[in-house]
């Protein structure tokens, strides 16, 4: 069971890293700048909107 657990966890971490390598970071949600353009206003990961324009 211990082996299975660590295989699953390692596989999960490996997929995250490979996906990161494949996709790259086109937009960094934490690079929000006060007063910046609207593209930079998406920093709230509640899943339903941005920060200043926090739409629900």
């Amino acid at each position, binding site marked *: 069971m211990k082996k299975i657990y660590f295989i699953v966890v390692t596989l999960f971490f490996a997929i995250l890293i490979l*996906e*990161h390598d494949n996709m790259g970071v086109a*937009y960094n949600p934490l690079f929000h700048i006060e007063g910046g353009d609207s593209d930079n206003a998406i920093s709230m990961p509640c899943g339903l909107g941005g920060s200043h324009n926090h739409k629900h």
Partner: protein
Amino acid sequence: MAELNLRDIPRIAIDKPVLTYGIIFSILFSYILYSGVGDRHLYVFLIGLGLGISLFQAAFGFTGGWRNFIEKRDSKSLRAQIIMLALAVLIFSFFINSKSFFYDGTMIGAIAPVGVSVLVGSFIFGFAMQLGGGCGSGTLFTAGSGNIKMVITLIFFIIGSLIGSYHFEFWANLPSFKPVSLLNIFSKINTILIQLSALGLIYYLISKMEFNRNNKINHNDIISNPSHSLIRGPWPLLWGSISLVFFSFLMLQVAGHPWSVTFAFGLWGAKIASFLGVEVSSWTYWQLEYPSTALENSVLADPTTVSNIGIILGALIGSALSGKITKFTSVNKKLVLAAVIGGLFMGYGARLAFGCNIGALFGGIASGSLHGWVWFLFAFLGSIVGVKFRKYFY
């Protein structure tokens, strides 16, 4: 089968291989985040590690605490949660909508509307977490500390979140009030007074109910722990309350919003579904501003994902340090079924209710949002029903 109580496992030597594994992956992720995403993502990850260690060492879970109160009127864990919320209200109220110490921007609260979706979603979540054996944060830290059953719960949590995002349009169109932020209605001081009064009343009521049932109550039980050690644990519950508020405050300062957990689960599910050929990007939810951006980006650009990885690794490191990494015993069919049902419905409920016990309850109340209180009430009612159903599985 009784749920594993981390405090009851005899302490053994530090598990060096597991500790090494946890440290190596922590360094690897730190490097990738710093070099490939940004310094603030690295800080979010380190905060996640702190949250994971705190959750594990204090065995700080909402599920067992609520169940102990519902079944035995043991309010110990619930009182620690109320103190955590009170501390968060006291601190967060002064900082929400103000400038961050870490970046040039305003920190925002977790404010969401109160509607049918929150009522139904939080009730479903409260019900399901009693079957799944952990809430949002609880599932993460127990899965991270080697509990196979909770890994199954986590997998189905992800699937449930994905299904919830598919049905999002239906739930979003049901009746709902506009978001209510107490900080927008009252002054900071009055918001604090109102919320602390409500929390104080709950603390008083649950203490009285414990005393009435058991003819005794010991308010020091959340402070005392005869064998506690900062490094090796177990921590008194109050240490957990304080450290979780501390790391949540850092999260607010660094990420610009309160700590959240479950958005990442839906994102992971959507990424996998997309890989398998499902046109997730055509779903209404994944066309919203933040979700659509997250879907197109590297998953490590999503701060919720980053903090969740930190929590998993933090719990793994904490369990290795304490020598209490969960025993790797096989799980029976009934427990697997409970994990599947619990995980699915928690994921679905969290998507409807704008988050879990962390994003909606903790973040919502700390931010002065009414939906946090409604979430608390309906999730607790769901847990009362869930505790009754749990007996068929455990």
